[in-house]
């Protein structure tokens, strides 16, 4: 039997394997494995106290965790809150990003400074900006409440982040505003508009000038040019942005956790993951909610890679 001499291509493949080995190992250990491990945990009755016990590896599967999660009377509310937060937060951040991009588009002095300023909410650490906003919105020491009361805009301070409902009297019509949820959504818009801003700005700069010139010659006014040229040119980037923002907002934990801890009607699914694990010490149920999040994410990614990525 003759041993085949390693060809040039074999050598290259082997080299590639070793070059990718560290990355592959780290990702396997800290991304792929946790997801599988999470699935395993979601099918077991595990509490936070059991972590050092042997029961973790026994093969006694149960669907009890999923039954508990779906049977929870709060589940419907949490799901609805998640959907409202995700949709409104995504739309708001994209709208603000679009506005900011239109404002900064074009040549004028100080433009690059403005661009830098507009990206800073996104660059700054989440703990710093959430604590600053909590302070600004605080009912006792917050500058916003003090100014509003001082100027007679408000009769009394509003606990923006800790009050569930705010009864508003709009020209005789009573409206109940979900106060804390609205504040969290506004924060989401403030913090993440730079993401949309960057992409829309890049797209705006790529629209050929000839389109505008041709339209001007044909007598289109600035507003007409915006609605008939700019917006249609942006539609692809806007829909992709929406998909990405939706996925990320849906899975967002830090912001709400730091702003409200999920209190006052802001409990979303990601907060539920944490609450089950560290509020009720139920790791199994926590993993089950995480699996639901993961399932929804997979569906979105499938949609993206099957349809949207192919079109582009």
């Amino acid at each position, binding site marked *: 039997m003759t041993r085949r001499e390693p060809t040039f291509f074999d050598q290259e493949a082997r080299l590639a394997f070793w070059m990718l080995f560290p990355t592959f190992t780290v*990702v396997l250990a800290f991304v792929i494995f946790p*997801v599988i491990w999470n699935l395993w945990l979601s099918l077991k009755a595990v509490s936070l106290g059991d972590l050092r016990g042997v029961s973790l590896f026994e093969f006694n599967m149960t669907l009890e965790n999923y039954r508990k999660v779906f049977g929870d009377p709060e589940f419907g509310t949490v799901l609805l809150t998640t959907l409202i937060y995700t949709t409104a937060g995504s739309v708001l951040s994209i709208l603000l990003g679009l506005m900011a991009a239109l404002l900064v588009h074009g040549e004028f002095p100080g433009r*690059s400074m403005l661009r830098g300023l507009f990206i800073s909410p996104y660059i700054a650490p989440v*703990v*710093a900006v959430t*604590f600053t906003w909590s302070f600004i919105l605080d009912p006792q020491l917050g500058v916003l409440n003090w*100014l509003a009361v001082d100027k007679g805009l408000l009769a009394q301070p509003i606990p923006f982040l800790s009050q569930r409902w705010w009864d508003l009297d709009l020209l005789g019509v009573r409206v109940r505003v979900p106060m804390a949820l609205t504040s969290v959504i506004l924060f989401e818009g403030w913090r993440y508009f730079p993401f949309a801003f960057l992409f829309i700005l890049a797209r705006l700069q790529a629209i050929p000038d000839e389109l505008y010139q041709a339209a001007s010659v044909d007598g289109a006014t600035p507003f007409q040019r915006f609605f008939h040229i700019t917006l249609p040119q942006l539609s692809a980037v806007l829909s992709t942005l929406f998909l990405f923002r939706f996925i*990320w907002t849906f*899975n967002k934990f830090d912001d709400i956790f730091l702003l409200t801890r999920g209190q006052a009607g802001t409990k979303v699914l990601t907060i539920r993951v944490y609450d089950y694990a560290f509020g009720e010490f139920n790791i199994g149920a926590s993993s089950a909610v995480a699996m639901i999040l993961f399932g929804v994410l997979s569906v979105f990614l499938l949609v993206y890679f099957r349809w949207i990525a192919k079109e582009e």
Partner: protein
Amino acid sequence: MSRERLEKTIIQILRVMGLLVFIAIVAFPFYWMMVSSFRSLGEILLKPANLGLDIRKINLHAYYEVLFQHGFLRYICNSVYVSVVTVVLSVTLATVGGYAVTRLRFRGREFMSYSILLIYMFPAIVLVIPLYVMFSRMGFRDSINLLILVYLAQTLPVALYMLRSYFQTLPPEIEHAGLIDGCSRFSVIWRIIIPLSAPGLASVALYTFMIAWNEFLFAFMFLDTPEKFTLSRGVVQLAGSVHLSKQLVMAASVMVTLPILVFFLLFERYLVRGLTAGAMKG
């Protein structure tokens, strides 16, 4: 006035107003963070609505207290250590890996490129509980080096993807001369690829630094011992322990925000490239 002129005027007015509103809303929290950190507790309690900054009354006591009494000197060192090590490891491994994915032929190369993107979409909240369980059981969860490995897993896929896109723009012919002269692949990377990719590497380094420096969730869940806290973890600890003394929390927030914003302003162009090329998760 023609319709064209009228609309142009309206647009100009809207634009100036819009810019002013945007600037105010974006900049105010940063301004307020800084101004409040320069005040004493007394000033904050007495005049919560005082918008101005009186240069003569700048009070740095909050910084002193946070740094020396609340352990932030230590947290700064920890954050620098975690971020720098993450950046060095991530850039090194992503350069080598990115080179392999772009230039070497092997089975599963296409699959690798796709799965990199997929992995990058995995949300931290799904990963944190199983990792918490696993490392608590193994008994080494409360470790700053473990945190670095987690950050590496979070940043490597994007870093590799970004560098792959960058390497694809370099003409392979430049390397051929080196390879024919008998250079190994690693010396090609070291002598040819790295010098040519400096801007791409800068983007990746900045981006990775930002992720590691700003990260909150894993640091919050993994670290128990205050000596090991990163800045973000430290700020949360501080905010939970002082109720009225907002000036302390604001001073701590300035400390964690300032380095990243300064970095960003200095190297804006690289970071923007990184943000749009990698489409940062957040």
